[in-house]
């Protein structure tokens, strides 16, 4: 059993998805999906433990030895990501039943869980696999189910958002496919480990250069990195709230993972950061993303839109850390992936609770909610403080590491810019706080009730995680640092 953990990680949600169709009642399907996702989480915990103790796990699919067969290769980096994805998925699913009752028509609820589990499968697969083509297949599994999930949104804008995402996402995935094809053409292998050894021999060719460019642009489309982010805000804002919470916390992290995996493991640090001016390019795009997205967030009237733009800004921080190509920089990026999943998970789940009570998340309707839904609003405030990077929250930890990484390189102007960027987050979080706490409720005669427990428990699990990992950073920092070091160790 233990030996088969890497494949179990992917196969549990994959098998669970079609089984969902056998149930007639959506409550049962919910329970079943929750169990499947929970099992995946347990597997990821075991995997992380095993990897931290005994190093890389290589699993041969069907007993075919790599590089001919498909290999699942779990190192510290993917074990960390698997934990984030399956953990968030489980917590978010906990609130799903109540939330979709209000947002999805009754005959589509079972399909919601099927799609959700397929999307989870895709994400876990992308992270677990050590085969470049396998990445493409799982990418499409997760994307196709994501398009359908977003289209389940109540408003008609959801359809349009989903269509736009489909076009952009498919172009991105096809770019990655072209890149993989070019790599195969030069090396005759698809195994990532094998690729990393064979690519240096042909590294000077234009084909490899083109492969690199295609892969990077494709991944950046999926990543919603500025200026390729146009699909993201509407897709997040009009999707069902549970879907938003799940994707905001995990989907972009998977794309960041792919970026790291391809640049560090497959192409190698020395190639990735010398042939293209990747460092300057990503640094400036990251910073532009932080500023433009944060400023746009300030002017939004829908709270879901505010935090969707804030997600793009947060991706900017990850990109800045990544662009430094130092151990500390990469540690900051990995930490921020973990931390951002915790904060955005908490915030979007709290928004799901608000939509459950109010029917929408327009800023003006939040008036007086601070007193009427104290626990939910408090979660948004703590999540917001974490976004800003206030000490004792996780946001502070990752910002701290990012600033340390920048100071290490003597990039003082960037340090200042990052701090100013964080101040922009104060403004959009404050707008929400002001409306919710300092304005009278809209209708005093019909007070809004606090969200039900099925929301409060998962929301506060994430909020407490936000604070816990902000104070006791041993687990997150240790794993992120080890993962970053192993990435550099592999390439030196």
């Amino acid at each position, binding site marked *: 059993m233990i030996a088969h953990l890497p494949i179990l990680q992917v196969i549990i949600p994959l098998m669970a998805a079609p089984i969902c169709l056998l149930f007639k009642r959506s409550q049962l399907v919910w329970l079943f999906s929750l169990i499947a996702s929970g099992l995946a989480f347990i597997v990821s915990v075991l995997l992380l433990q095993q990897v931290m103790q005994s190093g890389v796990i290589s699993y041969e699919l069907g007993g075919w030895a790599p590089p001919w067969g498909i290999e699942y290769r779990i190192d510290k980096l993917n074990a960390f990501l698997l934990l984030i994805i399956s953990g968030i998925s489980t917590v978010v699913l906990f609130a799903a039943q109540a939330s979709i009752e209000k947002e999805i028509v009754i005959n589509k609820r079972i399909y919601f869980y099927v799609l959700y589990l397929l999307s989870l499968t895709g994400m876990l697969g992308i992270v677990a696999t050590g085969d470049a083509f396998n990445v493409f297949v799982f990418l499409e599994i997760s994307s196709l189910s994501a398009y359908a999930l977003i289209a389940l949104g109540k408003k008609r804008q959801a359809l349009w958002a989903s269509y736009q995402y489909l076009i952009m996402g*498919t172009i991105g995935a096809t770019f990655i*496919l072209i890149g993989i094809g070019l790599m195969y053409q030069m090396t005759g292998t698809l195994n990532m480990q094998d690729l990393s050894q064979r690519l240096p021999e042909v590294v000077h060719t234009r084909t490899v250069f083109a492969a690199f460019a295609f892969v990077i642009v494709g991944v950046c489309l999926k990543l919603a990195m500025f200026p390729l982010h146009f699909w993201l805000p509407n897709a997040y804002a009009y999707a069902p709230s549970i879907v938003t919470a799940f994707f905001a916390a995990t989907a972009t992290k998977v794309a960041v993972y792919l970026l790291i995996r391809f640049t560090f493991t497959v192409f190698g640090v020395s190639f990735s950061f010398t042939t293209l001016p990747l460092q300057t390019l990503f640094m400036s795009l990251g910073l532009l993303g932080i500023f433009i997205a944060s400023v746009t967030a300030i002017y939004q009237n829908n709270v879901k839109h505010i935090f969707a733009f804030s997600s793009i800004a947060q991706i900017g921080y990850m990109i800045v850390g990544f662009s430094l190509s130092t151990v500390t920089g990469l540690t900051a990026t990995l930490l921020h992936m973990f931390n951002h999943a915790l904060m955005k998970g908490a915030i979007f789940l709290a928004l799901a609770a608000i939509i459950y009570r109010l029917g929408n998340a327009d800023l003006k309707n939040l008036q007086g909610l601070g007193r009427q839904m104290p626990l939910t609003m408090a979660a948004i405030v703590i999540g917001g403080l974490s976004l800003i990077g206030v000490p004792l929250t996780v946001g502070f930890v990752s910002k701290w590491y990012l600033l340390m990484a920048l100071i290490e390189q003597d990039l003082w102007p960037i340090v200042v810019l990052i701090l100013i960027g964080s101040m922009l987050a104060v403004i959009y979080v404050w707008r929400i706080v002001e409306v919710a706490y300092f304005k009278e409720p809209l209708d005093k005669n019909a007070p809004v009730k606090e969200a039900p427990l099925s929301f409060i428990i998962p929301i506060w699990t994430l909020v407490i995680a936000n604070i816990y990992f902000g104070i006791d950073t041993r687990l997150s920092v240790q794993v992120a640092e080890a993962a970053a070091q192993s990435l550099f160790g592999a390439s030196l």
Partner: protein
Amino acid sequence: MLFDLFNHWVVITLMMSGLYIVIAHGNLIKKIIGLSVFQTSVFIFYISMAKVDGGTAPILAENITQYSNPLPHVLILTAIVVGIATTALGLSLVVRIKEEYGSIEEDDIQQQDNQDLADSHLENKA
């Protein structure tokens, strides 16, 4: 020289025309068709990459010595399935969009969305 890379010219032509259709056309169905053409170019790229001149199918038999690389061919079977799924999903989205917006022109839909947004802003002020 140019003729040697005939396959690649086909691939590039299809790829660029596909992308151009996706970007330039406002009709949602045409966009999906462009996307399909774009994806097809990649299929041809993989297939021609693996083809060996004079090679046959990779079968274990006495008089077969030269054969094409089967792996990219198999890979592209998967990619074709993915392509079909994407096209099907895209087209069904277009059907739903037509039902909801009464149009499949990008400009119309965008305009209606902007109108909706402006209406809700007015409500905000009221």
